[in-house]
């Protein structure tokens, strides 16, 4: 139920949690208009409030909260949204092997760690564990679990202080770029790893691929953010 114009974030009392969760899942996507995503978040909150243990409602709210947090500039709001996304998944008591839940938990935890900085570095181990579970479904978001874990391995403090592991990162990111070549972040994150490994030429090639794939037609508002990141990395790779 994608809404064509700016809808009011008011949720009908007659809608079932399943209907609300399905509507939220439809509206919380990269190509949706900001108002659609706002509506999606409200619908997901309503679905979860009515059925806190329902998997679909928890997943929808975790997804909507992550998308809202990802574009949010206010750090306190980012933390609040990411915590909301993680809390609802905990409240749903999903099995620990639920790959999609683990992936959405990891996305929210990733934003939480990024925003909290040094006070959250101790959570990197949790993040790795979640992403390993999520890796059972590598097709989520076109290689999402592979590229997020790969990037974490690039950016985290390396052994023995943290989970950082450049070789493991390159392996995961090469797989993501090979199996899901249409997602620009798979190429961009591989470029980060290659650059750290001193493979500048290959890194530039991957940045070029990321640039070609990163269009607003396919990725909406996110394309502009990713393009900024692509240009920054290209400057480092020159």
């Amino acid at each position, binding site marked *: 139920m994608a809404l064509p114009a700016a809808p009011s974030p008011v949720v009908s009392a007659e809608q079932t949690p399943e209907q609300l969760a399905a509507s939220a899942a439809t509206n919380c996507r990269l190509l949706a208009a900001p108002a659609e995503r706002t509506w999606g978040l409200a619908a997901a909150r309503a679905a979860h409030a009515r059925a806190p243990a329902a998997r679909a409602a928890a997943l929808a709210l975790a997804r909507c909260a992550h998308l809202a947090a990802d574009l949010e500039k206010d750090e306190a709001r980012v933390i609040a949204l990411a915590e909301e996304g993680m809390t609802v998944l905990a409240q749903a008591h999903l099995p620990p092997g639920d790959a999609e839940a683990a992936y959405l938990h990891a996305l929210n935890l990733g934003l939480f760690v990024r925003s909290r900085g040094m*006070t959250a*570095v*101790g959570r990197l181990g949790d993040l790795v564990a979640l992403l390993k579970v999520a890796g059972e479904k590598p097709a989520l978001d076109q290689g999402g679990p592979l590229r997020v874990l790969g990037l974490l391995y690039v950016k985290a*403090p390396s052994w*023995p*202080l943290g989970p950082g592991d450049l070789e493991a990162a390159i392996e995961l990111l090469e797989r993501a770029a090979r199996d899901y070549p249409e997602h620009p972040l798979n190429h961009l994150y591989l470029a980060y790893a290659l650059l750290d490994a001193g493979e500048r030429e290959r890194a530039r090639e991957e940045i070029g691929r990321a640039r070609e794939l990163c269009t607003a037609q396919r990725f909406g508002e996110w394309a502009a953010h990713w393009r900024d990141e692509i240009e920054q990395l290209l400057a480092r790779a020159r």
Partner: protein
Amino acid sequence: MLLTCGLSCPVLAAAKDGAVALAIVNPGGPDAGAEGSKLAAELAAHLAASAGIAPAKLRAAYFNQTASALTYLKKHKEAFVLGGLGVFLGQRKALKLVPLARLVGKTGGDEEFSVVVRKGRYASLQELRGKTLLGSVLADDARYVDRFAFGGKLEASKWFRCMPSERPLSALRKLAADEVDAVLLNRVQLEALRPMPLFEKLQVLHSSGPVPTVGLMMTATPRTRALRDKVVQAVSKLCGAEKAAPVCQTYGITGFEPMSEDALAEAIKTYEKR
């Protein structure tokens, strides 16, 4: 005027010139990029708040190469430096460094270096002559490595084919795969390696024995001397603070213990002995 000015006048005069530096110098450590700079900035902000220094007056910078740290510290002469004994001994005279606090980790208050090889491959350092030696420790001051990791019995750069590596785990994987001959590890690295399946293929060939450590030092200027007590106190409390405790835990640091300026006199003698 002289009476009212007292010790604080040089501080006030120098304060007009800008911030005091907090340089984190970790030769052979990870190239932390933007994340490392952010972490360093957060650490400086926390220490400044704890020491009662205006946040803008303590500017952090992270370096994983001594040369770039030196360039920075020659421009920012008023500095507190978080770094190890190699940095202290190697730059003590050039930067007028004074030790302030010792870093205490889970494995104690001293350091130890170990050369690790594949099981049964080599029996002594003598047999490793001309062979490849990898390790992040090799990016530290060369004389320090010779005198403390090898007890002054050999010059590592002449004895081995040294290959400083930012990634010790990668070096150990190469060692297990028979692609290199030996890896030089510090104590934290060796303790992390012991429980790993990788260690089953490896053995310790040489241990340095205990090596003294330092964690915090300063360039001796009137301004750093004036701030010294506040900064040492803030650093000593660092790992007990709610905000910084997770960082200490992540980096295996239990805390910092204040030390006297002459606490490293013996280490200086060992380093400078002809």
